């Protein structure tokens, strides 16, 4: 039985603003089930977001929450984690927020390996501003700013974040909502920087323009194009063209940033005490 998550919601703020069929609510449910599975107290969790459709999420959540400026969620989250390392700091962000305007914050948080979990709601488009292409829009897709098709190639955001130094990187989809919950739970339980890309659907500004007429069509697309990592390992590069891997894509153990910083404070205070003696 899936666990109801309504006890984590500010129910007076519901229903949410997301369009009918928007996958963001499914991803949000997966985040909440992950938190529930870890048995975390509401006061132990701080959820931070930037700007965009995905970034509206914390407004509905009964945790410590912060809705910040465009692309800067991880910068704010870094401050929170430095001040209160005992908190589970979770950034909820979109593909535009995380990969475009906040791209530097993302890679440097990964480089520092600070104990923040970032869940990127990747719907391939800037939905809130009516469908401009983002750094995650697939090549050839139609967008309001790409009426003849997007000529750019998207990032592999998971590869990027792992290469930058993150401790845990995974990808799931709204369709594979149970798997997504499990990946997010493992990410939150990771000590260093953890990143989960959640492929989600924007039926309003991406699907309709790109031959997927409904949210149901878009979820079926996710089902048909996602390949579990174990299966992908046995497939050739040609077989994987147009597909994407889901599951745990990278895990490593590296010193976490706030612990390193605490060690610096300890060393400095010891030296000062010795000088005073």
């Amino acid at each position, binding site marked *: *039985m*899936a*666990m*109801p*998550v*309504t*006890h984590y*919601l500010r*129910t007076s703020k*519901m*229903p*949410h603003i*997301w*369009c*009918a*069929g*928007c*996958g*963001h*609510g*499914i991803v*949000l*449910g*997966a985040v909440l*089930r*992950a938190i*529930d*599975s*870890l*048995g975390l107290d509401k006061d132990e969790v701080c959820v931070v977001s930037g700007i965009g459709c995905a970034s509206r999420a914390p407004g509905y959540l009964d945790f410590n929450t912060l809705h910040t400026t465009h692309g800067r969620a991880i910068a704010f989250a870094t401050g929170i984690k430095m001040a209160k390392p005992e908190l589970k700091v979770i950034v909820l962000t979109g593909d535009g927020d995380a990969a475009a305007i906040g791209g530097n914050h993302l890679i440097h948080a990964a480089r520092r390996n600070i104990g923040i979990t970032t869940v990127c709601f990747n719907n391939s488009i800037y939905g809130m501003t009516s469908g401009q292409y983002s750094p995650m829009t697939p090549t050839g897709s139609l967008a309001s700013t790409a009426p003849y098709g997007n000529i750019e190639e998207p990032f592999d955001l998971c590869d990027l974040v792992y290469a930058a130094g993150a401790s845990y990187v995974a990808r799931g989809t*709204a*369709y594979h*909502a*149970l798997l997504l*919950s*499990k990946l997010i*739970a493992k990410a939150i339980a990771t000590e260093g920087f953890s990143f989960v890309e959640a492929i989600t659907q924007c*039926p309003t500004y991406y699907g309709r323009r790109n031959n997927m007429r*409904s*949210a*149901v069509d878009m*979820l079926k697309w996710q089902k048909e194009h996602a390949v579990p990592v174990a299966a992908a390992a046995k497939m050739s590069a040609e077989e994987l063209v147009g597909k994407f891997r889901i599951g745990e894509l990278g895990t490593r153990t590296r010193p976490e940033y706030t612990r390193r910083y605490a060690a610096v404070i300890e060393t400095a205070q010891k030296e000062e005490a010795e000088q005073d003696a």
Partner: protein
Amino acid sequence: MPGSIEAGPAVEGRPAEVPVEINQKWCKGCDICVAFCPKEVLARPEGGKAQVAHPEKCTRCGLCEIMCPDLAIVVVPAARKGTSSRGQGGAADA
């Protein structure tokens, strides 16, 4: 109490009268629950919200609950018999 994120086995025996609660105020009528329910328990009238059309077919697998983008669905465990102990979301409270 921490919960489980397993979908869990289907509950044996006769389901409670309304195994699925749908908060009509939160449902936006996207059809995801209707399309993905493996037992065709749910239906949606033209222009309306999701409804429990065939409660007797429900196995309480929980798929509609985890895939509802409006967080509007709660699958009621057999023992709870139609009331939501966790609160404000369920149709029973609406």
